[in-house]
């Protein structure tokens, strides 16, 4: 028994560094999440969301945002795989966490969920700015929508918004359509047009604007209409995924359970779409959807099986790659019809859509161009919501060798004939010249 314990402890201590890394195709499970709160009461008031995460196997660790003992990494190893910031009012993080630490955390491929709220602190705004979104600078501004608000007997100031302007992407929001609008109360943000990594997942309606509901509007609001993003996501170049929203209450049990009726619409939904929306999007954030891996890249001449060291111009070749998508528990075949292969030297010489066998295998065949040089097989697959696949493999292409050209060209037969008739003539002439009398 004691020995078993020893083995257990030893194996844990060996595995520990690997358990706490960012999402990696090698060890995609075992995810520890640090949740920073303004107050432990959020654990209770937002428990449905946390329970949904726990039931999917995430290990949530709740800490106060200003707890002096919190840290993201120790001895150079990250202690968590993801961070949830449900602390809109925190002015300074405790422990060793600051904005730079969070940015480094994301830069090393970890995921982040940030929920701001009305009167969000400068710190949380700064985190938002680092993620590529700008919250409305007015601290008491809220998103107001006098047309797309949620009908409620007790909420008269139209800051409780029923929004249903989703991004059209099954991989981000799941295959099931979100029927009920999303309840949102909080601040809006704008995504920088120069940043191609940020996507608006939930936008405000064209009639919305961001302003302080209690004071008169004298200058044009900085954010209006569909330019206001309510919920945004970022997929960084290292495949770290981020969610930024200006409402903490949209995660709350109250909003999850509340019914919703959008103003001007007769349909009254029993339950708001918040639970479905936020659960589905958390699956995306935590890489349970849309994370691709490519394995078994193979290429060879038609009719052969071994991979050659180089190709000759005009060879017929076959290329195949297997692509899988992580489903949260296993790698499932990725089915798509727009995976493309490039045969590339400075610019693509051949660009071909790979055909799929629906079981993850993508293949194609083509003829090597009659240009020699060092080429690359490139698969650059970028699709909304999916991690980007970027495979490249270098392969040289050589010209014909001298003895690989055509040997007896019919057009040259007269020349051959002339030479040989000349030689025959010479042979006969040698007799005639020497021995004729």
């Amino acid at each position: 028994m004691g020995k078993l314990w020893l083995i257990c402890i030893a194996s844990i201590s060996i595995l520990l560094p690997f358990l706490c890394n960012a999402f990696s195709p090698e060890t995609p499970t075992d995810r520890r999440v640090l949740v920073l709160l303004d107050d432990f009461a959020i654990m209770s008031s937002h428990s449905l969301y946390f329970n949904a995460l726990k039931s999917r196997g995430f290990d949530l660790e709740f800490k106060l945002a200003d707890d002096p003992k919190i840290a993201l990494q120790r001895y150079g190893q990250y202690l968590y795989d993801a961070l949830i910031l449900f602390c809109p009012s925190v002015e300074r993080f405790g422990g060793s966490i600051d904005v730079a630490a969070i940015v480094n955390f994301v830069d090393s491929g970890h995921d982040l969920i940030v929920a701001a709220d009305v009167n969000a602190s400068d710190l949380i705004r700064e985190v938002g700015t680092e993620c590529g979104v700008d919250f409305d600078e007015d601290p008491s501004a809220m998103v107001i929508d006098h047309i797309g608000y949620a009908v409620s007997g007790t909420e008269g100031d139209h800051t409780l918004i029923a929004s249903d302007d989703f991004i059209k992407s099954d991989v981000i929001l799941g295959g099931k359509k979100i029927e009920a609008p999303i309840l949102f109360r909080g601040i809006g943000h704008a995504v920088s047009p120069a940043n191609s990594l940020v996507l608006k997942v939930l936008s405000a309606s064209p009639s919305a604007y961001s302003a302080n509901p209690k004071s008169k509007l004298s200058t044009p609001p900085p954010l209006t209409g569909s330019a206001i993003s309510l919920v945004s996501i970022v997929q960084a170049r290292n495949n770290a995924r981020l969610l930024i929203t200006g409402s903490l209450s949209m995660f709350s049990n109250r909003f999850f359970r509340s019914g919703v009726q959008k103003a001007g619409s007769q349909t009254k939904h029993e339950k708001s779409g918040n639970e479905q929306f936020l659960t589905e999007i958390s699956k995306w954030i935590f890489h349970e959807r849309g994370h691709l891996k490519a394995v078994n890249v193979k290429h060879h001449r038609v009719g052969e099986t071994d991979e050659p060291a180089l190709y000759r111009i005009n060879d017929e070749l076959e290329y195949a790659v297997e692509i899988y998508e992580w489903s949260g528990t296993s790698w499932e075949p990725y089915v798509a019809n727009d995976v493309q292969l490039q045969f590339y030297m400075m610019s693509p010489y051949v660009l071909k859509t790979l055909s799929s066998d629906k079981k993850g295998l993508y293949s194609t065949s083509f003829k090597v161009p009659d240009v020699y040089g060092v080429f690359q097989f490139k698969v650059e697959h970028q699709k909304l919501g999916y991690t980007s696949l970027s495979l490249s493999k270098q392969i040289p292409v050589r010209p014909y060798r001298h003895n690989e050209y055509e040997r007896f060209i019919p057009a040259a037969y007269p020349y051959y004939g002339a030479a040989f008739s000349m030689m025959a003539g010479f042979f006969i002439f040698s007799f005639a010249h020497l021995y004729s009398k």
Partner: protein
Amino acid sequence: MPTNLNFEMARSLVGFTVLLLFLSICESASFFQPISDSHRSAAVELFSPDHGSFKSLEETYEALRTFDVLGIEKKPDVTATACRLVSETVGSSSSTLKDLFYALKANSIVKCKINDKAYQGIITRLNAAVDGASSLPDFYYSVGGLLLVKGSKGDVHLADADGIFRLVKAFRQSDGRWRFSSNSPESSAFAAGIALETLAGVVSFASPELDQSLISTLNSDISKLFDSIEKYDDGALYFDDKLVDGHDHQGPLATTSSVVRGLTVFAAVTDERLNIPSNKILGLANFFLGIGVPGDAKDLFNQMDSLACLESNRVSIPLILSLPSTVLSVTKEDSLQVNVNTVLGSNAPPLTVKLVGVFTSGSKAASLVESQELVFDDGTGMYNLNNLPKSIDVGSYTFVFEIVLHEPEHEKIYVTGGQKKVPIFASGLIKIENAEIAVLDSDLGSIETQKKLDLAGQNAVSLSANHLQKLRVSFKLTTPHGLAFKPHQALLKLRHESKVEHIFVVGNSGKQFEIVLNFLGLVEKFFYLSGRYDIELAVGDAVMENSLLRAIGHIELDLPEPPEKATRPPPQPVDPYSRYGPKAEITHIFRAPEKRPPKELSLAFLGLTFLPLLGFLIGLLRLGVNLKNFPSNTVPATFATLFHVSIGAVLSLYVLFWLKLDLFQTLKLLGFLGVILVLVGHRVLSHLAATSAKLKSA
């Protein structure tokens, strides 16, 4: 270590305050709603047993109690499993005191059948536990257990109640808080609640013979405890422990719940009236109601149990005034409805609800209406004000209500909390008239083109202007009562083809709204972008029922060319859908093969190349070529044959070179053949030369 924890706790308290603030923002109206159906559905969801049973007896009791308070029909299987668990615990002598206590508590709700023998065993065990108790929880469980047995069996007595009372009282601290045991230095309000509940049990065992002075000192302790009550901005009161061990810290909800339970149980058993201001009880009720629907089973139990205690306590029963709707339509003539209930939503005693005054939000002006009584409707159980007062136009108001109890003795039993301020939104349809859009000439202000707009319907005006002209949009807003209305959102939006947007606030003077855009001053702001601008008008307010966002049409602007250093328009977001997607396929175009003559032509020319050879042969025959000079002697003849064979070999070598040999093989063989050829050729040629010389000389 403790200082660190205290620090943490203090901060958690600050955080909780922030949360409550946030909750109060959420609620927007700072009044509290009694328990509703959402609590019931949450309770069923939260207390869902795993495989038919709960994790512990404590949780079983909490579930049963919550269902009981909320009036949820107990599922038969829950009752059955609870009973099985209860009888197992009660029957076994190894169960802990805590389990026994919760088993008896659960039993008091589900009423299982427990035989007398088991009861006798429990009584003996509990009495022994009381005697051996040294800490507050021990007393709590054992005395509480005995009390529960007494509740179902009757003939249970507590020996030396007076002594136990004094023993428990020894845990008291001077500030009204209590300690868990004599060893622990820290006192807590949570322990105070437990102690009060325990003492209430002791009192009910020995009510007449107990020293009344003990109870009155306890009364002053309770007053001291209530001095340390904490307060939120919205009037909610709560208890929180700051100085406790980290692992025992219960949080404000559990602490307040414990105090409320202890207080109400104690108030129920003593004859003396506790000296607690009734407003504090109302504040505690507000605290529990302000939490809303908790997401945690334990929190829900604490909330429900405390509210149930407050519902029928002997100190003062809080009455909660609530409004089903605080958004009233002036146009639809909604009636103002007010509910007065106890915390759990049961009916209040006969009373009158008075509307004391109505004030415009944010102004200190006098009340808009006279004080008036609301009419009670028996059917709905609500107090109605059928027509909103005439002086109420659209806008946001604060209504002030007051509850007046009919019977004076109810004043002592119930607490109403005096005047109650409720924010009310009076919404209505706003009349939009005289909507116009016009292009003006700059100098004179004369109208060049003017179009009427119908802001209720669709418009598609098309205008054109240059930078020397102005655009004017104007409309008039009036409330249902014919007064000026100033909406929060009155924005004019111009959107260029390239999606660059410009937003302007439409200003007003009284009812008339007007905005004049002087393009001459705006060219720089418009980035000198000429072309089509779509015009949108948004008018909206929280109390405007017909808020609108209309595309009015478009204006074709002719602006001057940008100067060298003009600012560029900001980049516009790229459509995310178009950014991705497959690219067009590329196929390589191969070099075309060289053009060649047809094979027949080559063969024909091949034939032609043999014609000279043929002509040569015919010519030789015509000349009468013979081989008479061929050496007749054996030796020269052999050399001549060898010479010609060598020539043939060299020619064959050339053929082979063409067919398969490479240059090196060919040269090697040629060198060898060449030597033979030279030697043999020399002999033959010298022989021939000698023969011809002989002939000449002869």
